[in-house]
Structures are given as structure tokens and as C-alpha cells.
């Protein structure tokens, strides 16, 4: 092990020497293991962000880096999160990975980092371009999921399974939440594209909550017995729907890919979960940091993968199991495009 790492260092030194000897070539400014990375994610009281944190920490370790990952003091503590980023900005990090709580709250802090000529990588939820420009901030690269596209894929897939002319019940997260709206709107668009005669009931807001979703599903089924399938904007709510009194064998789709949902897909209680991969977002964030520190050209925007996990691929998804709790399938069960990995100089 020790010999291997020293060999890697030797190689890296050799590469560095060669590249510095050859003029005109893009020189690797830093070795991957010397890149200092700090990250500020959202509150760690949500499994999704724990998944991202693990993606950052473990990917960094693979390159020999110990990343300092900090979280907002709470999921709604927007000012506290800005304070955290400010605290880290005073230190000698090469790169900052950020997930803003709202689309505006980190803009000024990012502006300060940009003034210090350091790199900022934005993952998961985008920072608003207008407020960022007003604060003089710059984001080198963004990697995140397209919730609309994930919903759309789910809509198409569901119509293929249940056939045309059916009624679908929709259960959304918190009222006014951007992620929930994107997933629901995407789902509707996908379903309508596959079957213009499809009818919807809802969306009803169940605030991302399992019990509330169960109550809503029961009420919706009483009022509209013709509902043939349900789409929930997250897995916890899909779980709730699966416990509804008259649910029978109606199809249920959720979004996220949390551990409980995968178990329910395996047992057939939930038909599918459109899985997203927070771990991959963290991974891409770290890789983008390394590319930037090496002076490479970083891809501006990358959409992280989503997969529809149903009975056809659930075994493969569960085979990726790790000891981690909520997002056991850290990596997708199939191939996905990672434009960052290949740009890192060894």
C-alpha cells in the first residue's frame, strides 16, 4: 500500500516535471491530493444531504484529500449557512462546494470568495444567476439533478405500464416548494405526452410526510375510486400511499431512491422509485474542484443521473448496497455520463 502510494507520487512528480519542461502545454498546477476542498451543504437533518456529504468525503479520500464538509445549522437557517461559508472563506482552501438553502442566500458569500480568486462549485440546487451577478460572484461549474426531467420520465413510464385513458392521483410536497413543483409538472408533461387522454386528481400537498400522504391517498380514493395509479413527489409519501385502505394493486411511483423505498419496490408494495444520486453530485463536485485547481477547463453544467428503479432492475440496485442508511445505492445501477472524471490529470 505504502509502496503503491509512493509510486503514484513519483509518477505525479514525473508528470509535473515533464509538463513543466515542455513549454506551451497546459501544466497541471496542482496534484490532485494537494487540492484543498471545503464544502457547505444544507442541513444534515435530511438524508439526501447526508448522501451528498458522503459523496464529497469519500470521493475526496479516493484522491487523497480530506475535505472539510460543513452544514447549515438547520434546513431553514439561511443566514447561518452564509455565516458558515464566510468562516471557511477566510481559510486557504482552493475550492468551495456549495448547496444554497435558497437560491439567493449564499450569493454575497460566494462574491467574497470570487474576490479572493478561489473556485466555487455549485451542486444540487442552483444559485440564482441575477443575485450572483449583483454580488460579483462566479460559479465555475454546476452539477445537479433535473427534477422536471425525472418527473417526465416517470410520467411516460407509468402510462406505458397502466395503459391509456386512466386517472392518476398526484401527491406533492410542501406548497410552493420548487422541487416538488418541478417533479409534479414534469410528471404531468411526460404522462400527457404519452397519453393525451390521461386524467389527473390533485396534486394534493402532503408536505413530504408519510402519514399525511396516507391520509390524502385515502381521501382521494374515496372521492375518486377510478384512480388507477399514484405519483408522489418523494419516496416517503409513496410509502404512505402504499398503506392506503383501498390501494389494492394500483401502481405507485415515488422519487428519490431512499433505502425504505427500494425495499418496498423489492416486495412489490411500491411499483417504482425514480432514483436520484446525491452521492454522485458530491463526487462530481470534488472532481470539478480538482480540475479547476489543475487549471483545466471545467464543464459548466452537468445534469446528474436519475434511474427508474422497478422490478426489472431492483436486484441490481440493491446489489450496490453499502452500510450507509438512507441512500444505499450510492451509484446508479447502469452507466451514466461523468464529464469530470476524465478531465482530471493524474
Amino acid at each position, binding site marked *: 500500500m505504502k509502496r503503491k502510494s509512493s509510486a503514484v507520487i513519483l509518477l505525479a512528480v514525473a508528470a509535473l516535471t515533464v509538463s513543466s519542461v515542455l513549454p506551451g502545454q497546459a501544466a497541471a498546477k496542482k496534484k490532485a491530493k494537494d487540492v484543498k476542498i471545503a464544502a457547505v451543504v444544507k442541513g*444534515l437533518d435530511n438524508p439526501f444531504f447526508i448522501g451528498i456529504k458522503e459523496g464529497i468525503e469519500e470521493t475526496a479520500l479516493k484522491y487523497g484529500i480530506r475535505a*472539510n*464538509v*460543513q*452544514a447549515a*445549522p*438547520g434546513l*431553514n*437557517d*439561511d*443566514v*447561518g449557512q*452564509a*455565516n*458558515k461559508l*464566510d*468562516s*471557511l*472563506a*477566510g*481559510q*486557504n482552501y482552493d475550492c468551495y462546494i456549495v448547496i444554497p438553502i*435558497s*437560491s*439567493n*442566500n*449564499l*450569493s*454575497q458569500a460566494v*462574491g*467574497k470568495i470570487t474576490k479572493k480568486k478561489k473556485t466555487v462549485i455549485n451542486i444540487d440546487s442552483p444559485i*440564482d444567476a*441575477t*443575485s450572483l451577478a*449583483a*454580488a460579483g460572484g462566479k460559479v465555475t461549474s454546476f452539477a445537479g439533478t433535473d427534477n422536471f426531467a425525472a418527473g417526465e420520465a416517470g410520467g411516460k413510464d407509468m402510462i406505458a405500464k397502466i395503459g391509456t385513458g386512466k386517472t392518476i392521483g398526484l401527491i406533492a410536497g*410542501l*406548497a*410552493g*416548494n420548487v422541487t416538488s413543483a418541478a417533479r409534479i409538472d414534469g410528471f404531468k408533461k411526460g404522462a400527457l405526452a404519452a397519453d393525451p387522454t390521461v386524467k389527473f386528481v390533485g396534486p394534493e400537498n402532503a408536505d413530504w410526510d408519510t402519514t399525511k400522504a396516507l391520509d390524502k391517498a385515502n381521501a382521494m380514493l374515496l372521492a375518486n375510486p377510478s384512480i388507477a395509479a399514484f405519483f408522489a413527489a418523494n419516496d416517503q409519501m409513496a410509502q404512505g400511499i402504499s398503506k392506503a385502505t383501498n390501494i389494492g394493486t394500483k401502481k405507485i411511483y415515488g422519487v428519490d431512491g431512499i433505502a425504505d423505498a427500494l425495499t418496498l419496490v423489492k416486495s412489490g408494495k411500491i411499483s417504482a422509485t425514480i432514483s436520484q444520486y446525491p452521492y454522485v453530485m458530491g463526487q462530481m463536485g470534488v472532481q470539478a474542484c480538482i480540475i479547476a485547481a489543475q487549471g483545466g477547463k471545467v464543464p459548466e453544467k452537468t445534469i446528474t443521473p436519475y434511474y427508474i428503479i422497478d422490478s426489472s432492475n431492483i436486484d441490481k440496485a440493491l446489489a450496490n448496497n453499502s452500510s450507509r442508511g438512507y441512500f444505499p445505492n450510492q451509484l446508479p445501477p447502469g452507466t451514466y455520463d461523468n464529464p469530470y472524471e476524465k478531465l482530471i490529470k493524474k
Partner: protein
Amino acid sequence: MDTKSNPGSASKPGADSKLSFKQRLRDPYFWSDWLVVVAFLLVIVVFGAINPSAFLSIYNLNNILVASAIPAIIVVGQTFTVATAGIDLSVSSILTLGAVIFGICFTKELPVWVCMLGGMLAGMIAGIINGLIISVRKINDFIVTLGMLSIAAGTALVLSNGRPVQIINSGLANVAINEKFGVPYLMYIAFAIVVFSHFLLFHTRFGVHLLAVGGDPDSARAMGVSIVRIKVAVYGISGLLAGFAATLAIARIGAAEPAANTAILLNSVAAVVLGGVSLFGGRATIFGPFVATLLLQALSNGLTIIGVASYYQYISVGIVVILSASLVRNVR
């Protein structure tokens, strides 16, 4: 109980010049007043020793001051309510409500100062309602403000429809980012409020009445002090300051956010206790809680800088609060 029978509520902690230094060290009130300063210096020294280049840099000390400004203003209001043996649990949602009102004014293209006054007015009204219900209906402060916590948070969500309003204004951003003589503008504003409140509490009749109501409401009433007036005033001030802090929060994050941020509430109560204000009322200082606010922010900043994982930060902050509170109790 008036201020004379209680040396700890003297305007300057430990200012009694008749006592020798040794005697003063044995005076429990000296310690409950100065403990927070000692703890603050300790935090600075410890983190300064671990990572001097990052923690003690001007840039970072500035960060601590910026982070402390908004909580410091909330803490002043909280000190007033606690000094009357009350507590204001609604500060965080009143701040949110103020921010939402600001956002609504801003989208109607009203001038920024009108928006700011709108937020302050909303905060003050919510606070006055708190004070009226507490004193006229004689309902426990804890219950009334807990109710207001929920009402203000809900009103903010209803009025904003749950959506944030982006507020891009170069004047506000200027206040949030810039500094003079190495001290951020935000801190000048907070400090001005602290000094003014100190004056209000210790050099006016209102302050004397306030502490009297907190110390012994029955005697205060017998002396002709109106409990209703004092309670309405302190909760009104607390609400007004929360509404004002909303403007600074907007300046700092560039948006009026509809979701309440409860961290600021917990922080304010912790700072008041750490600062040596008696939860039973009648004894207060303004500077103690102010230093406690700096202490809590320096602690959070320092733990972030030395890379302590977020999970442990909660524990350390909690330990510091409980430890200091029990130390104060011990020496008393």
C-alpha cells in the same frame, strides 16, 4: 425588589469601587456578570492558539462581527422581555414576517426605507399583541409567544404564498458587505442599538420600572407602575427589533425568505442566559448578552474553521450554554 437592593443590576458590572479586588472576586454577582467576558476571551485564545493564521485574521474577526450583528439585535429585545421575567419565543417568526412584509412592499416598488418601516411596523404590532394578551389576559408569556411563533410563521407563509422574493438593492448590499475602520457596518448598527438600549434600561425611568416589574410585579403595581404598559412596551420593542433585523437579514442574503429560521430564537435565549440575565426577572445587563452573542458566533466560527463536523458543533454549543449557566448558579 428595586435596583438598589440588588448590586448585580448595577449599570457597569463590578463597578462598585468601594470593594477591593479580592473582595470583588468573592462577590458572586461579579462572576455572573463577568463570566461571559472570561468565556469569550477563552474562546478567542483557544481557537487563536489552534489556528492563529485563519481564526485571528482580520478577515475572520470581521466575519464573526458580521455574523453576530443580527443575533445581537434580536438578543437586545429578548433581554428586555426576560428582564420582566418573560420570554419572547416568537422573535424568529416575527423576523420572518417582517421580511415577508418588506418583500411585498419591495415588489410593489416602494422605496427601501418604506419597506423597512413596513417590516418594523409589522413586528411591533405582533409584539404589542403579545404584550397585551400577556398582561391584560394574564396568560403566561411562554404560551402567548409560543402561539405567536406559530401565527406569525403562518401569516408569513400565507402572505408570501410560500415563495421567496428576491431583493437586489445596491444600498442594502453595501450595508451588508462593507466596513469602516475594519468593523462591518452591520456591527455599527447593532452596537448603536445595544448602547441605546443600555441607556434606556439603566438611565431612564422606564428602565427602572421595567426592572421593578421583573423583580416583583406586586410591589411594582403597589408603587403605581403599570404592568400592562411595561409588558406591552417590552414585547413591542422585541417585535420592533425583530422587524428591523429582518431588513438586515434581507441585506445579507438578498431575499425575503418565507420560512422561519428557529436557530435565531434558540441563540437569543442562550445568549441572554449566558449574559447573566436572570430568567426570574429584575436583573439584567445589556452588554452581557451582547458579549454572549459574540461568544456563540465565535464558537461556531472557530469550530467550523478547525473542521469540527457539524454534528459535534451542536453538542459543543449546548455544553457551553449549560456549563456557563451552571457556573453562574454555583458561584451565586
